[in-house]
């Protein structure tokens, strides 16, 4: 039942925050902050509890589960379940939620109540996505997430927000529809084969189907997740949405919405369609590597600081896609760490850009220069997260990307080598960012206040997380391990694509998958 409360608490907090706005702008801020802090405390208590009881090491059971009938006629149930990866994602969700609330403390000046309502409902929907193990429910939360985000960008966004929201909505909506079709397809295929019509994840695993059907259904999911991730070439909504979103929206987008796509691939796409995913691995990994390089190149090309950070996201998420389709424990653990590290580091960069925009009212790199000399604290924070972005050992991103690459190398040497070029191109954009904005002489004679206590606290918390993740990621790895091993077992067929399937269509490419040494 605790799982339902985790979602309901956020939904309720959102409503209360909205209603409280009539009493003044401070109310919704404090209410959201307290709601999230309480939820984070509960999650932390759960985490330590699981640690102490050793539940994280118990292989076959969910950490917590809620299973209630919902629409019996359809076979849809209210089925929520928590595993290690989901727990980590929930922690990240709440942490970044707090960051987003704190970062928009001063920036949001009108319709504060509705803003915070939207914020909390986004978080609730995302929590639902991480918890749902009934595909009908999953789709419900998946769609629920979009609406408040649409409002956040559309109402509190910057100049070009209408175009950005439209684009964002069309991309995500069109791709979600494909997923809906794929979900229904799977539902009927499973029902026809077994006589049991269900949306339940556990029930749908290992559904027998022809390889053509499997491939089509898999692609339906893939497109939806790839848009969210985002993967090339369906990434183009992201720079626009990010650039126009208010800071909190960007933090949610980068930190959480992108993770939902990756999480969907981890939990649903590969386990439900292991053979098709395996056959699709080479194209997916090529897209991933292309995304790593392309994102970094375009990040370097931008003059709008926020757009630049948005493109770095595309580059980082390329590592996630690459790691998922390498599908061994090294790469998958790496994926989880990259997801968290990217959420924190890119989130922090968006917060910094937002703080900067609040001060100088522009995001144009050409108008910044020498800001270090006026705002050393902000400069230091920006430097640190730029370094995290370029994968400096000792910070979280390195651990993730290194694990992904060392895992990918077991599967494909050329792809690992190409992806390693990401280390070089990311250095180029990260140093460029710091140099253009913060180094050099203060040409525009900016006289600006440095970080105040609130802003410094936010940054300090994020720095603490990214550093801890970099030098002692063991708690995270330990939490994710069993869940990932379980996913590995669900998709055991991933590494023997031909064996389990009676007659794969001729010419189905297994190239690039030889030497895939199982989960190590």
């Amino acid at each position, binding site marked *: 039942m605790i799982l339902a409360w985790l979602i309901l608490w956020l939904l309720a907090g959102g409503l209360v925050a909205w209603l409280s706005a009539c009493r003044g702008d401070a109310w919704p801020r404090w209410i959201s902050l307290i709601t999230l802090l309480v939820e984070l405390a509960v999650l932390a208590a759960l985490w330590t509890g699981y640690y102490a009881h050793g539940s994280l090491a118990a292989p076959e059971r969910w950490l917590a589960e809620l299973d209630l009938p919902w629409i019996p006629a359809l076979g849809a149930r209210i089925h929520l379940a928590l595993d290690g990866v989901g727990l980590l994602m929930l922690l990240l969700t709440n942490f970044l939620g707090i960051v987003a609330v704190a970062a928009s403390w001063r920036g949001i000046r009108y319709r504060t109540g509705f803003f915070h309502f939207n914020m909390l409902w986004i978080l609730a929907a995302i929590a639902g996505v991480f918890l749902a193990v009934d595909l009908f429910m999953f789709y419900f939360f998946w769609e629920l997430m979009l609406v408040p985000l649409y409002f956040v960008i559309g109402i509190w966004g910057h100049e070009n927000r209408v175009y950005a929201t439209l*684009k964002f909505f069309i991309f995500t909506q069109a791709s979600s529809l494909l997923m809906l079709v794929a979900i229904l397809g799977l539902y009927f295929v499973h029902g026809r084969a077994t006589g049991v019509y269900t949306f339940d994840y556990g029930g749908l695993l290992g559904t027998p189907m022809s390889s053509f059907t499997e491939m089509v259904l898999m692609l339906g999911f893939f497109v939806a997740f790839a848009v969210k991730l985002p993967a*090339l*070439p369906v*990434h*183009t909504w992201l*720079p626009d949405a990010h650039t126009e979103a208010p800071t909190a929206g960007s933090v949610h987008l980068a930190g959480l919405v992108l993770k939902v796509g990756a999480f969907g691939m981890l939990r649903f796409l590969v386990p439900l369609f292991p053979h098709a995913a395996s056959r699709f691995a080479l194209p997916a990994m090529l897209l991933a590597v292309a995304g790593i390089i*392309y994102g970094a*190149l*375009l990040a*370097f*090309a*931008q003059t709008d600081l926020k757009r630049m950070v948005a493109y770095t996201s595309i580059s980082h998420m390329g590592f996630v896609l690459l790691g998922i389709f390498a599908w061994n*424990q*090294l790469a998958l*653990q790496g994926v989880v760490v990259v997801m968290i590290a990217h959420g924190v580091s890119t989130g922090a960069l968006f917060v910094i850009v937002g703080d900067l925009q609040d001060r100088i009212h522009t995001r144009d790199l050409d108008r910044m220069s*020498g800001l*270090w*000399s006026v705002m050393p604290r902000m400069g230091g924070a920006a430097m640190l997260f730029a*370094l995290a972005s*370029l994968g*400096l*050992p*000792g910070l979280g991103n*390195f*651990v993730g990307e*290194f*694990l992904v*690459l*060392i895992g990918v*190398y*077991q599967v494909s*040497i050329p792809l*690992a*080598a190409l992806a*390693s*070029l990401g*280390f*070089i191109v990311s*250095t*180029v954009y990260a*140093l*460029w960012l710091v*140099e253009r904005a*913060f*180094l*050099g*002489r*203060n040409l525009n004679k900016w006289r600006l206040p440095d970080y105040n206590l609130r802003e410094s606290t936010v940054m300090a918390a994020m720095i603490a997380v990214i550093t801890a993740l970099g*030098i*002692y*990621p*063991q708690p995270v*790895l330990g939490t994710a*391990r069993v869940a990932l091993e379980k996913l590995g077992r669900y998709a055991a067929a991933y590494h023997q694509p031909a064996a389990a399937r009676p007659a794969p269509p001729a010419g189905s490419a297994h190239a690039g998958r030889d030497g895939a040494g199982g*989960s*190590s």
Partner: protein
Amino acid sequence: MLRFLFLIPFFPFAGFAALTLGGRRLGRHAAAVGAGSVGLSALASLALAAGFLISPPPGYVYTQSLWTWMKVGGFSPGISLYLDALSLVMVLVVSVVSFLIHVYSGGFMSRGEGRRFFAYMNLFVGFMLTLVLAGNLVLLYLGWEGVGLCSYLLIGFWYRDAANGRAARKAFIVTRVGDTSMAIALFLLFAKLGTLEIQPLLKLAASHWQAGSGLAVAASLLLLGGALGKSAQLPLQTWLPDAMAGPTPVSALIHAATMVTAGVYLIARTNVLFSLAPQVRLLVAIIGAATLLLAGFSALTQRDIKRVLAYSTISQIGYMFLALGVGAWSAAIFHFMTHAFFKALLFLAAGVVIKGLAEEHDMFRMGGLRRQLPLAFWTFLAGAASLSALPLVTAGFYSKDLILWDAWSSASGSHWLWAAGLAGAFLTSIYTFRMVFLIFFGASRSRVGSRPGFIMQAPLVVLAALSLVGGFIEAPGAPFLSGFLHHALPVFQQAGGSAAVEFAFALISAAASLAGIYLAYHLFLRRPARAAALAASSSGRLLHRWWYSGWGFDWFYDRVFVMPYAWLARVSKSDPLDLIFAGASRLAAGAGRLFGRTQTGRTRWYAAGIAAGAIVVLALAVNW
């Protein structure tokens, strides 16, 4: 005693943390905190070295595991330290030289910038000590990248000048190219051998791989890539001369004594892999020989005192690579040690000159400074003598002569390598004494504004002493250092040559050194017109410009890498892939307009449309 090993890198890291997090009050004592933490680290390593020598641990190896860094299946690199003869020598040199340079910096840097400066410097020392003490390659990589970061931060320390930022970025990116190659080496080694713990890995490699096997070649080539970047060897040497944009103590510490020799350490540490790949080892020797010559020529033509020293550093590391390539492992480490002493000294003494002349770097605007800055002169002279391998009395002579002799006599050596090294030695003494004569002799051209205080002088004197007598640790007949290092490094394989031949070769290299000094005296002090005429002749001008620009590598890389990348970025700035969707949306809008046209409001057209549609449908229905 050895239990306290972790304290050696811990102190500088603690100093960094204190300087970053401690408030303003601490900032006023930044120099004391910065130098103090490194001093503690140097003391700890001296004490540890004494303990190590008096009661050596079993097998001359001590390991210490602090915590597991990341554990995924069989991949579990720890934060673990590994102390053996090789890392002990490195730790000693690094911590002691770092301490001396920190003390000097206390006088060199102005008060206002001290906190940030010493924070970065301490961070650097911490990472450097982590690098040399790392028990596994992942931790070594952490130190490796960490020192690269500090190098970046310190080259661009005076960030208000955009040129410094550019130089810093260039250094980071160029070395990152090498680092990426090293990262791939790590992936390969883990995939094939299943561990990245250095010692087990080397044992596995030795037992699983045959000499010259493809895997051994690939692994050592990729590691070599990393070493080339960090140690500024061909073809990744271009960043080091520009790195001189940093404050002079930084150049002394990072870009002369310690970080740039990390590549030498890496190759020595993984010598088993390189021994399994003789082709790659030959390549190492050739790269070393080529680099030492090219950089030597470039050093001859520079006007900026720090750029001469930078090219000289590249060239001297070339000697170390040459030694590594011919299997003279301990000779390479010996030269690393003496080079750390005399090159740090030269930079620090140059710093005194530069500061004394209010940031003047051009040697042609100096001159006659030996009376005004006597201590700088005598110490610089000691360093210069050591760099030019002045026979018998300098440390540099012993280490360089050893490399030359080993290059000739090694089982994998060659006469060509020896000849290149000898020519390089001749070049070295020319450009070194060109500096000495231009700066300290001749007519006085400028007045010295400020003179160094005691805390800047003391490190100079200590380093000068080390540059002169440091060589006796490996004196012919009593090779203490290589005897000690053989607990960690393989013994040098000599092909032939008797003591008498060795003595004759020592005479030859001594002659090369002296001849170079004489030539420098002749060209730059006695007949400066002759040198000017030589440089002004048409072929002289061409060569001069070519050498001066570092053989045109920057020009080439700019055109092949930098400009195309920038161009690609410029043309794809607005995301070409978005055109697909922009096109689709335009198509939809166009189609909408097109069909909108049909809504004319004229009944006749509508009726015609209905009729036409009905005919088509009927036709289809009938024919089916």
